[in-house]
């Protein structure tokens, strides 16, 4: 742990950047699968339906809510970066980053509750 997170990295904004990167990697890894599943519809709805039924279990639903988490946190973190880069500098980055993380977790949790 000391190697990965030396003292100079132990702060909210560095962790926010790490979360942004990891969520981006997760989304990039997920997208081809997502497109392949949707592409099943090319032969009509049956195959797609089959896969959707197979996906109707708690483990998959949990994975889906983690993906929602990744999407929302990457989106909100990206908004923060766009703000830093395009508008006058504002302090309070730590609060924004923390808010992004919290909102993402709430959204992902709401999703999980609805689909389980």
């Amino acid at each position, binding site marked *: 742990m000391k190697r990965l997170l030396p003292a100079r*990295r132990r702060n909210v*904004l560095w962790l926010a950047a790490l979360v942004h990167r990891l969520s981006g990697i997760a989304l990039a890894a997920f997208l081809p699968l997502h497109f392949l599943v949707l592409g099943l519809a090319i032969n009509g709805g049956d195959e797609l339906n089959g896969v959707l039924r197979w996906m109707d279990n708690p483990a998959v639903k949990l994975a889906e809510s983690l993906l929602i988490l990744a999407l929302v946190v990457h989106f909100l973190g990206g908004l923060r970066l766009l703000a830093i880069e395009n508008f006058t500098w504002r302090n309070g980055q730590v609060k924004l980053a923390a808010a992004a993380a919290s909102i993402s977790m709430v959204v992902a949790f709401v999703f999980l509750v609805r689909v389980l």
Partner: protein
Amino acid sequence: MHDHTTRLSVSLWRGKEAGEYQTYQVPVRESQTVLDVVTWVQRNLDPTLSYRFACRVGMCGSCAMTVNGRPRWTCRTHVSKVVENGRLEIGPLENLPIIKDLAADMRPFFEKWQDAKGVFAPTKSRHDPIEAIKPDTAQRIAADKAIECINCGVCYAACDTVRWNADYLGPAALNRAWSLVNDVRDAGNAERITAVSADGGCHACHSHQSCQQFCPQSLNPTASIAGLKRTAARAYLRGKVES
């Protein structure tokens, strides 16, 4: 077990990239700084220890080292503020080659300064009237926010993008480029914008803000770099950046 109130356990990096920490016992003194500790070791225990300092009073930036994992000016760091369980671990600034022990080789840092065109390009001669610079113009305010950099290298050592991207010019060089972009007397902007728009230029910055966190002068290179990103993007879209 050493009494933490009278003795410090100080681990100092010895050697170059291949080397090791050697531990010394140093007497605790009131209001001791980390530089005091390093000096005491060199004078009383091991004259072969190499380290760098100059002013000792927080003006020159020469004494920057890594102290318990964080880059800092050792002359302005009280031991009492950073000591952990009676221990200090001190190494040279990171992201730079090591000359010996605690002295880092600052050459790559200054080479990138040049690469970023962090050099003033004059437009007037002594025969021209002095340019009147109003301190409250937006450009002068922006330049003044960035201008107090004394090239100590702490931000460069703190930056993970420097660590991960060998091409990255780094926060100090880009911060200087930004202060010059905002200097109305300077004529070098065409070259400068091109320099910071290349691979490893300002656009490689991820806004981690470690530079801002550790800068002993309370500068904000992240904000300067954000300004450069905007300026360079606009110039590129207007066809003003040479590829």
